[in-house]
């Protein structure tokens, strides 16, 4: 009996320590990020301003650490590296998308080119952040705008013409899933 409670207590305490540790890590990461941002923004290395920056970063990290990193996971670094690979591709896609739209916009018979419609598809993405990334990527890329995206991975997309609709979800989904280490 006694040992059981002890065990439970130690488990609890260890869990608490773990959550605390996680919180602390996300706090610390937030702090670092914030302070870096401060340095970039400030551009001055006056001690007083640095102190103020530290204080500000501390305050924000203390009160809002759970916003940036709700639950600390070790995969952040990997994700970050993958994302930085994903970004150039995305930019390229965006450029393409924009020229596509430009063509439509300046086309004298625009209304014949476009055929707006809404398509729905389901993905297996789990994490919110992955869904968000995909949704925003879709919005930025050719002729499509995400209308809704639910947490179980159902996307509703408004496409301006057939061509852009057909490209979905396609390669982008794979890339995003890869970035966040999920199944397609």
């Amino acid at each position: 009996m006694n040992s059981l409670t002890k065990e439970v207590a130690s488990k609890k305490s260890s869990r608490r320590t773990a959550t605390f540790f996680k919180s602390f890590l996300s706090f610390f990461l937030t702090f670092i990020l914030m302070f870096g941002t401060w340095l970039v923004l400030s551009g001055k290395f006056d001690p007083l301003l640095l102190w103020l920056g530290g204080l500000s970063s501390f305050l924000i990290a203390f009160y809002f650490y759970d916003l940036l990193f709700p639950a600390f996971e070790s995969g952040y670094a990997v994700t970050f590296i993958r994302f930085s690979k994903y970004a150039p591709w995305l930019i390229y896609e965006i450029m393409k998308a924009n020229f596509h739209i430009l063509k439509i916009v300046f086309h004298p018979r625009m209304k014949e080119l476009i055929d707006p419609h809404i398509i729905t598809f389901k993905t297996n993405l789990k994490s919110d952040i992955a869904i968000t990334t995909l949704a925003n990527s879709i919005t930025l890329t050719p002729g499509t705008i995400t209308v809704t995206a639910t947490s179980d991975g159902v996307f509703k997309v408004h496409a301006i013409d057939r061509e852009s609709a057909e490209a979905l979800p396609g390669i982008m989904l794979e890339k995003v899933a890869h970035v966040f280490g999920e199944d397609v």
Partner: protein
Amino acid sequence: MRLIGFIIVCICGGLLLYGTSEFPDWGDPASPASTHLSNDYIEKAFDQTQVPNLVTAVLADYRGFDTMFETAVVFCAGLACLLLLRDYSRKKERFYRHVPTGVILQVKHPEKKLPVGTEFEYMDKDWVPSDLIIKNVCRILIPFIQIYALYVVAHGDFSPGGGFQGGVIFGSSLILLAISYNLRTLVQRVKEKALGILCALGVLVYVGIGALCMPLGGNFLDYSALTRIIPWDPHHIRAYGMLGVEIGVGIAVMAVMVVIYINIASEGRHDEGL
């Protein structure tokens, strides 16, 4: 009414137009407004206060008395909204959603509360599932916006901005939290009591710094008197005095903006809103 309004407006316009006939040209460097006082400010302010942003120097030092009341006005607006709209009466009925099943429960008795947590979710009357994308993006953006806001407050001396702007931006970052999640998240995170105290505290920081100068032998808001407790060059101490004042302004404005938003958006009930 339209006609009367039109006539009045035309009379006012005519009067103002009549007055403009003697105005110096727009941007004339020799106009009285650009020569009489402004030259003094431009040429002396930096030497006297060591603050490159002349607007901040004039705002927080030469005309610091104005600014103090400006902050008081903001404080007062927040308090006014609180007083006018705050509704302490409990709502008759509340809605909960049982998360695993999605069943919606209506609780009519005002005293009974369900444990809100993993199982039950508190629901607004016009409940919408909060938007995933917006939520996530805002979640990421908010801390950056906040650090930016604090940067603006701290750098009032060197760049445009200062306490007020920074405060507003900080406030709107919190408002963004309410918009992207829901109002209740904001209210839970930032307690009403804390906001109320911060409103007054911000102004108190300002007035306190000003009033502190009086027992130290200076006039009200004369920061150079602060050298008695912080030994420093009297010109630099003015800059630090201003910094302190700006922080006060920032705190007050931030709190007030949030208070106004919460009260207007929820009609003072602090439960559900925009």
